[in-house]
């Protein structure tokens, strides 16, 4: 056998493994310069603070005396603006989506939580997002929870992942005869 033959042989890798490893599911995250954002934000805030404190002390009245000069309001406005900007930068960073399902879950089969519990919902929870399709899950069922060993047929259909990555959902189950079952029917079946 040559390495070329072996490479061709690997074309027979199982569908589910190919789908799970689809690089399209792994968003390569740009190395966002959080450090730069934080450093820049931090330095700006520190400078503004120093400036403000300095001005305040400079213009503050001597003990017992009356204030000779009032703090210009523009300084306070600048400070407030700068602080707000820093916060919004951080928020923007945190909003960068993490579409890549957590690796620890990604391979556990698409229909169950990592601890093996079954989740069947009538509709997608808010924040759930699409992760792939066509993953035959019967093996996951058998390997994750032996209670479902007697279940035959493949769970197929679009798969969705909850926002926190803890659960995935399948919209349909198609039984051996090609009939599509609803969530309620599925739940009843599993009960």
């Amino acid at each position: 056998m040559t390495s070329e033959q072996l490479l061709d042989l690997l074309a027979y890798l199982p569908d589910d493994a190919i789908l799970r490893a689809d690089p399209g599911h792994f968003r390569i995250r740009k190395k966002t310069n959080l450090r730069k954002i934080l450093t820049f934000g931090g330095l700006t805030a520190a400078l503004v603070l120093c400036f403000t404190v300095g001005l305040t002390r400079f213009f503050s009245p001597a003990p017992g005396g009356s204030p000779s000069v009032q703090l210009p309001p523009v300084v306070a406005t600048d400070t407030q603006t700068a602080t707000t900007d820093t916060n919004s930068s951080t928020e923007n960073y945190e909003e960068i989506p993490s579409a890549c399902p957590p690796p620890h879950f990604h391979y556990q089969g698409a229909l169950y939580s990592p601890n093996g519990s079954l989740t069947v919902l009538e509709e997608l929870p808010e924040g759930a997002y699409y992760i792939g399709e066509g993953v035959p899950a019967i093996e996951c069922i058998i390997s994750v929870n032996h209670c479902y060993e007697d279940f035959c047929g493949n769970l197929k259909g679009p798969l969705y992942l909850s926002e926190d990555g803890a659960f995935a959902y399948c919209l349909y189950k198609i039984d051996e005869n090609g009939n599509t079952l609803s969530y309620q029917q599925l739940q009843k079946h599993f009960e």
Partner: protein
Amino acid sequence: MNTDEPILVGLYFSRDENAITVTKEKYGAYGHSIAYGILENVHDTAECENDAYYRLWCSIPPAVPQCFRTYFGRIVRALALDRLRKRQARKRSSLSEVMMELDDLIGTAPSPEQTVGEAEIRELLRRFLGALSPQTRDFFVQRYWYLKDVATIAEMHRCSEENVRVALYRARNALKKILTEEGYL
């Protein structure tokens, strides 16, 4: 299987040319990413994609893909590899790197494809993958099915290239062990 896939396969069976259009819309990007990952050339990738659509048209029917996405992916991969082999002699490519990595598995035994059926090969590979950790399994598929380079895989999983290399090395050894045990090497 996507619930739309039976409909799409039905279009092929009814010889409806919209099947190609729908395939392009739904799976074009997937096929492109596979082909480009192997060929690293826009022109070759486009030709490979077109060949794949033609191959699909010719193969369905009689074929009834259980999972259309991977069926299409396999066709694209095979065509891209063929195309790459034709130009491989000229220069060192990503394929030749993969070949070198697989060289340590090679023996003088006959090709498994010659001695066993497709079902047996699938079963063997399924058993092999089942023995790997989930992350290593993904490393392996991304490296030897999608032919992604190690740096890209490391970036996808947010780990070091060295981690990926070590995991792949162990996976290759595991595959070698299985192939040896089964008498293919």
